[in-house]
């Protein structure tokens, strides 16, 4: 699969020389003529005339065209061989393209047979073509294979899964798309049946049969309706039960991983109250996050409340001080927002270190105009005029950081009343 590096250019060159690829960009239908023209150095128009002429004469041209369509890879396809091209073609091509292709292929084959003198009548040909096209629509798996990266990566899997996945939407295919695809397919097949009956003169008889069948169906419906309804209800009840037991299994798995684990640790470290308290806090926080249904790790985007919660957890674990976060509203974090979080983290750290060991209260409010974070401890408090040197350093990292990002930080301290750091970030009007 992976050739030696030095051989790559040569292989590339031969591949380019040998391969005929459909040129879909310049093609009229599927790019067969354009691609052939490119390869042979002939005007595609000439080839088109040849195909058209042979099609009109005997149908052979059409057969050849459709075969070429299926066997030749499109210009942006990777593989060179016909089989690979076919496999990829299945994955890449749109449903309608495939349905048309199958229909045309069959038409061409039938026309060719007739040209060779085999007795085929129109009564058979058109219905068969319609059935083939409709069937291809119903049985084909994906309408959006071209846009589906998984399908691109696994063309073979897709091909083998084609039959089994008739009614299941493929990855990337929306439900309405599936319904309309199948609807059109079914319509085509029914149309084929009607055309056949009409041509064979059996339509009137078929109407009678259909009527009789309808009457019988209604009669059976009335007779079996209660049973069918009960079956449906019991099926849905069964399904609900299955979902419930799945949920139960999930909860059990989570409890095993987290709570039981923590309880075991608590028993082991029963002699160390600080460690036990820290374990309990950590487990509590984790369980709350899980219960609230919020993802532990947001997909890419960091948000204010979650980021504060994470910072609080970190401080709590490192310093063994409870940090309670109350957030009103939420907002995504930009660079300034991250600075706010960093400053809030410093403030929590400060409060945990110097707050006298009591709980630290963090309050965040995300309004339209600004983000506010308050970090409060219940320490002895201090006189802002006589701040210890190490504390002033922390203050600089809070106040300075906020000012650099267009915000401000205020430290309210009163003797006996604890210390509160207020961080404000005005939000740019969006």
């Amino acid at each position, binding site marked *: 699969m992976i050739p030696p590096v030095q051989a790559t250019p040569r292989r590339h060159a031969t591949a380019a020389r040998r391969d005929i690829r459909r040129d879909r960009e310049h093609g009229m239908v599927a790019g067969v003529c354009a691609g052939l023209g490119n390869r042979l150095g002939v005007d595609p128009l000439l080839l088109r005339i040849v195909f058209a002429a042979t099609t009109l004469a005997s149908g052979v041209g059409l057969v050849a065209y459709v075969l070429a369509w299926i066997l030749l890879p499109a210009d942006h396809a990777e593989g060179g061989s016909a089989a690979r091209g076919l496999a990829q073609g299945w994955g890449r091509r749109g449903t309608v393209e495939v349905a048309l292709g199958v229909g045309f292929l069959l038409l061409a084959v039938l026309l060719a047979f007739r040209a060779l003198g085999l007795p085929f009548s129109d009564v058979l040909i058109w219905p068969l073509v319609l059935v083939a096209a409709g069937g291809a629509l119903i049985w084909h798996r994906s309408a959006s294979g071209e846009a589906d990266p998984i399908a691109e990566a696994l063309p073979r899997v897709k091909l083998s899964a084609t039959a089994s996945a008739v009614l299941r939407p493929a990855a990337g295919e929306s439900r309405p798309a599936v319904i309309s695809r199948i609807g059109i397919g079914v319509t085509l097949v029914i149309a084929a049946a009607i055309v056949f009956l009409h041509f064979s003169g059996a339509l009137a008889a078929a109407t009678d049969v259909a009527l009789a069948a309808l009457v019988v169906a209604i009669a059976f419906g009335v007779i079996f309706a209660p049973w069918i309804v009960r079956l449906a209800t019991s099926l849905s009840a069964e399904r609900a039960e299955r979902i419930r037991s799945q949920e139960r299994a999930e909860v059990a798995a989570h409890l095993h991983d987290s709570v039981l684990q923590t309880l075991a640790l608590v028993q082991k470290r029963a002699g160390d109250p600080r460690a036990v308290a820290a374990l309990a806090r950590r487990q509590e926080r984790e369980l*709350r996050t899980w219960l609230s249904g919020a993802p532990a790790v947001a997909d890419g985007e960091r948000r204010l409340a979650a980021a504060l919660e994470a910072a609080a957890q970190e401080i709590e674990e490192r310093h063994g001080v409870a940090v309670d976060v109350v957030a*009103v509203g939420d907002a995504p974090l930009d660079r300034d927002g991250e600075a706010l979080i960093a400053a809030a983290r410093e403030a929590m750290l400060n409060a945990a270190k110097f707050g006298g060991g009591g709980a630290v209260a963090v*309050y965040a409010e995300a309004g339209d105009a600004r983000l506010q974070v308050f970090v409060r401890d*219940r320490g002895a408090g201090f006189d802002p005029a006589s701040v210890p040197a190490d504390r002033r350093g922390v203050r600089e990292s809070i106040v300075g950081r906020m000012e650099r990002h267009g915000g401000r930080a205020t430290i309210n301290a009163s003797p006996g009343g604890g210390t*509160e750091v207020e961080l404000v970030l005005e939000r740019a009007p969006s």
Partner: protein
Amino acid sequence: MSAMPRVVLVDDHELFRAGVRAELDGLVDVVADAATVAEAVAAIAEFEPDVVLLDVHMPDGGGLEVIRRLRAGATGTAPVRSRFLALSVSDAAEDVIAVIRAGARGYVTKTISGAELADAVRRVHGGDAVFSPRLAGFVLDAFAGSTAVAPATDRDAELDALTPREREVLQHIARGYMYKEIALRLGISAKTVEAHVSAVLRKLQLSSRHELSRWAAERRMLDDGAGA
């Protein structure tokens, strides 16, 4: 200060009841405790305590059910005059809001210290509301974007919004301030702070604001589901 408030303690965890009893010993008078809704209703009817400490989550319906049954007069007596203080490990907004709307005068989490709990009981006994920081956060969330600019003439509109002062008081509670400290910071009396909190509690219980109704409805739905 009058005599110690008489308290009935309702919680389905015996260990927790014992812990709270020990913590409150000498601070309030725990006259009875109960482990189920039925026991609670009977004990409250019998002792008519000043304050009921009520666990929100219990297997047979929890605090909400206790309040509902006493309201409905299941005991055959007149509705009790006891006040309810909800006590729970739950932080879910719908639990908190639902129990407040059912009639509880406050909500504290179970991690609260004994002294703080006793203080909260005394305050509820005195007719005030008790808001934990988290409850204050929920209320601010529920009333977000609805500051009453002028004293509203319409009663419903007044119930659906917080005044700037009420908002300020709630923000301070959420920031971890005690009532006394809030009074100092805002330059008002502690009584005024309490009046603001009581006004917020009233709005919380009576407002038809969409968020509040939704939370209560969700909670009721869960209860019905569990009861069926």
